[in-house]
């Protein structure tokens, strides 16, 4: 699209790619997972709170998983400890899944991107 006073503006910007399908797929995922908007209008406070609480718990849960993997990699866990730790985390994941279902929240509703935190641990 040329930018000049003489040419009329086009409705849509140019999109240049050789991999339309791939980008459609990936961008659909992104669009479906924008940061959680927690609406704190009077009517939906409860729902907003549930989302907030579960988001934070989910965040912590993922941190714990990362921590566990770190320690496993570090070699300072016995096979029994690995098994126990794994089982505990498994149960935590399952419990959180239950809670999400109870509140009718899908994974996408609690979108989390550990981003920079991943590098901190």
């Amino acid at each position, binding site marked *: 699209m040329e930018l000049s006073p003489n040419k009329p503006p086009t409705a*849509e*910007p140019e*999109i240049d*790619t050789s991999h*339309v*399908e791939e*980008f*459609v797929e990936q*961008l*659909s995922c*992104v*669009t479906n997972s*924008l*940061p*959680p*908007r*927690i*609406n*704190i*209008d*009077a009517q939906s*406070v*409860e729902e*907003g*709170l549930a989302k*907030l609480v579960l*988001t*934070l718990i989910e*965040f912590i849960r993922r941190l714990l998983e990362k921590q566990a993997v770190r320690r496993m990699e570090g070699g300072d866990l016995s096979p029994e400890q690995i098994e126990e730790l794994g089982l505990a985390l498994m149960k935590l994941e399952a419990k959180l899944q239950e809670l999400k279902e109870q509140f009718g929240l899908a994974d996408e509703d609690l979108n*989390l*991107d*550990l*981003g*920079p*935190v991943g590098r*901190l641990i």
Partner: protein
Amino acid sequence: MSSPFDQMLIESDVEQLEQADLSLLETLDHVLNRGLVIAGEITISVADIDLIFVGLNILVSSVETANEVVRNRK
């Protein structure tokens, strides 16, 4: 009886649809989560993860109500 040209037409229709989808997705990527936002939102970042609260205008009263809700549930 279908000819090779029918197949080509179908493919290019699909291509056009996908191109249109891509165009829409790119547009959404811009208009949905960027741009000027009038006060009415606060972003609370926990370790660089943004949780966006909308409805800032009634933030204070909503927090009060939230506490009541929690207290009443117990």
